[in-house]
Structures are given as C-alpha cells and as structure tokens.
C-alpha cells in the first residue's frame, strides 16, 4: 500500500473507513496506470513488444526484471508519478474532504 489513511488525514481529508479505502484504491489504480503508461513511453517498439509478451505469459518475476533492465529510470518514474498524484490529491483535498 502506498497511500495511508494518515496521509489523507494530514492533508485534511477525513473520510470514514469505507470511503477512504475506496479513495486509496482509486489512487493506487490511477498510479499504476500512469506508471504503466510511462514505462511503455520509455520503451521502443521492440522492447514494448517484449514486455507485452512477458505480461501475457503472466511471468511477474521476468516482467519485473525486464523493466529493471530496460527502463533505467523506472524508479524516478515511479517516484515522480507518485508525487504528481499526491500533489493532485493535495489540490483536490478540499473537494474530497467535503
């Protein structure tokens, strides 16, 4: 889990358990999609094709290794996408808390 209820609270987003769980799930799905998009952006067609093959084979370990090997700045991508999304969360905090 990346986002915690405490982080939401620190932003002034105080929701009940059900709503905060839904928001956290939405946050993480959005983050996954954005990171996935950036990963694909960083690959050329051949590499993307290879990644697709690995994903279709459900080999998580090989896929992870492939990303490590072929997307040298994947950690930066993950960190930046996380920070961007948290920034958006901070921007939306008032609306979400209401």
């Amino acid at each position, binding site marked *: 889990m*990346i986002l*915690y*209820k*405490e*982080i*939401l*609270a*620190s*932003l*002034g987003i*105080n929701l009940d358990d059900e709503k905060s769980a*839904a*928001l956290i799930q*939405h946050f993480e799905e*959005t983050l*996954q*999609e954005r*990171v*996935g*998009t*950036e*990963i*694909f*952006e*960083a*690959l050329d*067609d051949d590499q*993307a*094709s290879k*990644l*697709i093959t690995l*994903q279709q084979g459900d080999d*998580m370990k090989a*896929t*992870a290794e492939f*990303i*490590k090997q072929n997307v040298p*700045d*994947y*950690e*930066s*991508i*993950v*960190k*930046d*996408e*996380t*920070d*961007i*999304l*948290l*920034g*958006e*969360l*901070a*921007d*939306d*905090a008032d*609306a*979400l808390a209401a």
Partner: protein
Amino acid sequence: MTEQLGNIPPASPDDLQAFENKINNLDSRSFETEIQDFLPAIPATSAEVHVSVGSSTPTAGSTGEAAPAHAYSLPEEPSTTPAAASTEKFDWFDKPATLSRTASETVVTAPLPAQSHEGGRHRAPRRRGVLARIGDLGAKVSATLQETQDRRSARDYVADKLEGAEAKVRAGAKIAKETGETTMILASFGASEVHESMKTAWKNNKGKLKTAGKIALGVAVAPIVLGVEGAKLAARTGQEASRFTSEQITATRISFRKRGLEAAQRKEHRAEERAQNIRTERAAQGADLRTVQQQELQALQAKQARKAPSGRRAIITAAKQEAKINLMQAEHALELDDFNSQTREKVAPHYARANHIATKNARRQSNLTALRMKAAKRKAA
C-alpha cells in the same frame, strides 16, 4: 504524412513540443485551462474564426451521463445565410446537438463524450480520455477552420466530416505522443495517413497498463520509502485523524503540491529527452539512408565506367571523332565558299545596274539644284 489546412501555418516545433508535454501532464482540473491556452495559438484566418469553449465542470455525484456542451462559433457568410435567426436540432454521434444561426454568426452546440464519475467524486480522466477529448476538440476546431475556408454550411460539415476528422486528430495525437514527433495536433488536422501500432493499441488497454505499473511499483524503492514516510508521519504525530491542526494541514498540502510540481517538471524533462533521442535516431537513420544511396550511386557510376571505352581504344575513338568533325568543317567551308562565289556572280549585274541608276539620279539632282540657284539669282537681281 500530413497536410496543411489552407492558410493555417504549421506551429513551430517548440510550440508543439510544449503542448505535447502539457498533454502528458494534463489532469481533470487543468484540462480546460490548457485548452484555453492552446486555442489562441491557432492563428485566426482572414475570416476571423471565433472559437469559444463553454463550461465543462462536471457535477459531483453525477452518473457519468452529464455531457458538458461546448459552443463553437463560426463567422457567417452574408451571401448565403438568411439574416433571420434560426435554430436547428440534429444528431451528432447519437446525441442531440443544435445549430443556431443569427445575423452575425452560426453556433454549433454539441455534447462532449460523457465522463465517468465514481463515488461522488470526479475521476481524473485517463490519458486516453484526455486524448479523446483533445481529439474531439481539435476536430471541432479543425472543422470550424475548414468550414470557414470551404464556405460550406457548418451543419453539413459537422454532419458529414467531423467524425473522420476526429478520428484522424486523435490518432495523430497518439502517434505524435508515441514517436515524439513534433508535427502534432495542428499538423495532424486533416492527416491523410494515420495508423495505430501495436504499442499504441496496448497503451489504450488500461488493465495491461495497470499491470505493468503495478509490477514497476513493486520493484521500485520509491513507494516503499513513501510508505515508510507515511508510517513515520503517523507515529510522529500520534494524532487522531481529526486532530491535525489547520496549520499542519496547510503545510502538508503545500509540501505535496511543491513535490508534485517538481516531479511534473522532471517528467516533462524526461519526455523532452525521449523526443530528442528519437529525433537523433531518425536523423542517424536518414544519414544511413543517404550513405546507402551514395554507395549505390557510386556502384552505378563504376558500372557505367566499365561499359565506356578506355585507354588506347578511347584515344582512337576520340581521334576518329575529331577527324570526322574536322572533315565536316572543311566540307562546310568549301560549300560556303562555293556558295559565296556563285552568289557574287549572280549579284554582280544587279550591283552594276544599281550603281548606274544611283549615279544617274545624283547627276539629275545636281542639275536640278544648279537650275534652282540660277532662278534664285535672277529673281534677286
């Protein structure tokens, strides 16, 4: 391959690159702002195309059916448009749209695709959604400009052409994003050749993207650090959720926003680097192609050289050609001389007669002058 629309000049590569970067960082809140920023960059035609975008703020808690209406105004053509105001209703992508005519302008009001909402909150549009909306808007702008130039009715254009234009713009935007090409959006209006690669199609599969993102998140250190920070935050404060002071909340929000902006800049920088790398690679491929073409040309020249006479044979051939030319020139000179000689013989009698006539005329003129002088002297005496 792209084509320009009439007198619309292409945007500069820097402008397009900047806009592409903006697209990469669009979210639901900033979308309309970005579009508003972008629209003025489209140069007005001589007919002063006017495009206005209405409010699209979604209603919280809506079911996703809400479709904000955007109005696009076209300058009216006086010669073909009735002065009286009128309103027509028509279907556009199976949704009701309105064409309003007044004495001064025509306004097409049509719905945008419905946006999804979840749990009473507006879900930030996915990248695909953003592209679709840009494509949608871009197509309308394109349609507006095209309409103005073609002097056809907005009604006909929207009904007949817009769907295809939208698809082209959308595909053009995708391709531009994928390849880092700077010939984006504007140049993609009216693109005649578009395609979607497997990679592009894959990028539209949210489930697969999420899987790739989830795996990347799993292997990255960053989210773990964030999680630790969250745990530390909770431990440090030891507070109930509702007990954060407004000052603490404000400080946290500011901190998160700042980090978000910095991250967005880094992301933009990465996108620029990727685009530059692709351009460099393509330039290198172009250089390779030129090298191959040069080699082929050299090979062809060598082949032709082998076929051509060489050495002693070439010298003999050249000497023969020179001798032949000299002979032709000599023959020509003789013929010319002979011609001149014959001509002189033929012309001589005519010259003699002409000289005789000229002499006779001169003598007559002289006698006439002498007679006139005598007459003048007598008259004076």
